């Protein structure tokens, strides 16, 4: 089915999350807009300070009350931003679920795994005790935990890292959410286990028709797992589009630089392309484009004027004043290499 024909389940419009004093706020997420369709996997990729994790947490409202969320977050047509804690709690866990990077700190070490799944089911469904147990076994099976029935009574520390991550996914899936927010779920895992977990997430998304927003810093993970990707820098969007386009034919100088600094198709032991400088801290962002200080094709207006997301073709958007120069600059480099 064509991606465009599937219904949009999440529509984020001009999301803005800030912290600190209202007079001098630290803007962690600045005017971010994107859509996610049913069964689609969207990747949010960026480095430290990019705002990708805060974006996820803003969707579920768990940055409040320290953070202030503005804009619109339309979940199946309903705006989540003005909802109070009580209303949000009914959405969390039941319709939108979230998994985190460190399973050991997101699982309660004092409760058995079975109990934790049961808890979620009790909170969000009407199943009775026996039905909850059966569903718990079903979920553990679904996420690939061998001998699921016997493991209900085990505590989180009795599972390995990869298994714990699967347990967290099982808990998240308990009430059949339609959207899964995954905040760097595999960053702390070994490569072979990461591979298993990502394949699992892909399969679940396919089989359950569940949309996924996957936050990561690894372009490879994005390439392998996501249908669409949004690149973030300094709390703002640089570029969005189908994965194949953004990875294979990037247009924003940051995306281009990032992809170019990954060693592939370069002669071994030669200097890698590197973006000069380091990711910015939130209190030192210019009024214009956040990437100005490190950009090889920055012009005089870049520091003062924010580039807005402009469409390239039907499915892609890029926020840059000097798209053409960027393309030329990096193609020349590639030819030189």
């Amino acid at each position, binding site marked *: 089915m064509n991606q465009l024909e599937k219904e949009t389940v999440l529509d984020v419009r001009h999301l803005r999350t800030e912290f600190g004093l209202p007079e001098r706020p630290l803007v962690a997420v600045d005017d971010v807009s994107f859509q996610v369709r049913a069964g689609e996997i969207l990747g949010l990729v960026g*480095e430290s300070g990019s705002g990708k994790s805060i974006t996820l947490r803003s969707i579920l409202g768990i940055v409040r009350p320290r953070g202030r969320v503005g804009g619109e977050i339309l979940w199946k047509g309903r705006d989540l931003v003005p909802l109070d804690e009580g209303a949000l709690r009914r959405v969390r866990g039941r319709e939108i679920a979230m998994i985190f990077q460190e399973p050991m700190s997101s699982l309660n070490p004092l409760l058995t795994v079975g109990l934790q799944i049961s808890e979620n089911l009790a909170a969000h469904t009407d199943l009775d005790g026996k039905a909850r147990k059966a569903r718990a076994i079903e979920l553990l099976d679904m996420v690939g935990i061998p001998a699921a029935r016997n493991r209900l009574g085990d505590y989180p520390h009795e599972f*390995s890292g990869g298994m714990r991550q699967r347990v967290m996914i099982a808990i998240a899936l308990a009430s059949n959410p339609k959207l899964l927010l995954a905040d760097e779920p595999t960053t702390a895992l*070994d490569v072979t286990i990461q591979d298993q977990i990502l394949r699992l997430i892909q399969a679940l998304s396919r089989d359950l028709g569940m949309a996924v927003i996957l936050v990561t810093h690894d372009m490879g993970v994005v390439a392998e797992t996501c249908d669409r990707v949004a690149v973030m820098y300094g709390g703002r969007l640089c570029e969005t589009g189908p994965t194949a386009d953004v990875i294979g034919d990037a247009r924003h100088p940051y995306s281009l630089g990032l992809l170019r600094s990954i060693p592939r198709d370069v002669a071994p*032991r030669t200097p890698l392309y590197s973006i000069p400088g380091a990711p910015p801290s939130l209190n030192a962002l210019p009024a214009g484009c956040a990437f100005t200080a490190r950009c090889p094709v920055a012009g005089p207006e870049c520091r003062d004027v924010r580039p807005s997301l402009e469409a390239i073709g039907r499915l892609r958007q890029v926020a840059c004043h000097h798209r053409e120069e960027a393309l030329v600059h990096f193609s020349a480099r590639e030819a030189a290499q």
Partner: protein
Amino acid sequence: MSQSMQEAATPLLSIRDLFMRFEKRRSLSDTLAGRPRQVVSALNGVDLDVMPAETLGIVGESGCGKSTLARCIAGLHRPTSGDIRFEGESVIDLKGARRRGYNKRVQMMFQDPYTSLNPRMTVRDTLREAITVHRMREGAGVDRRVDELLDLVRLPDGAADKYPHEFSGGQRQRIGIARALSLEPTCLVADELVSALDVSVQAQVVNLLLELQDNLGLTVLFVAHDLRLVRHVSHRVAVIYLGAIVEIGPSEALFSKPMHPYSQALLAAAPSLDPTERRRAPALSGELPSPLDIPPGCPFHVRCPHATELCRREKPALRPVGNGMTACHFAETIGGA
């Protein structure tokens, strides 16, 4: 480098049959119950030669023993059995002045930029200490050398009198490199030097390392889990699984045609940047066995798709296959898939 060329040159570092076992602390109840001591077998018979001026990459997943190996080489652990020879002389039991002599030849850089520098000492203090303790320079020469070292790692002039927390992660790793270089070593051990850094910063530090190696003729042991980086940086690569080398060979050859089933799975699992190369099934199933309880025979047989009865019984030795060496009974048939 062909096999015969390697044998002709003398290795800088020679490791033979290295075992490292850590005993877990026993509780009083364990002692009273007479339970046997639990032993973590971190290294199980490592044989390795490191040639002068080469970069040897060491890859493997967590718990495979690569960090333990690095620390044994740097002198932080005393191996349980086996030998490490530097320029022909054993360095296992060195004490006092001879130990310090070895430290001047082999230095180490650490993974965590936040804890690898003493937070209460300025950069100048840290470097001066290393220089003066080993009497590398005297009087005014010490501070001149400090400035030289900071130049070498491309840190700005004012950096010397700042404290570690005033620097970014990438800069701190450079300070770590400067500290290691202050002793003018022949060999550097880099234990996950860039793993904790943002992607755009990793390339900067890697480039610095390459440049320093070329200019100073250093031998580098590059321990990492990022396969792409290791491939780019190394002349030769060794793959470790459960404390033993399962494959070693020239970097390009090993990465384009891995022989050992684990190497193959590792490379297949690593996220590819090509969105068309997508798999549904994970490259490797199962979990890493606990190093408390290493399987008999070939340690990989539990997860190996090609395991036979022979594999369960007999541990394969590291033997020449193709361009490098592999520890697999069936390397000729499995390899080069």
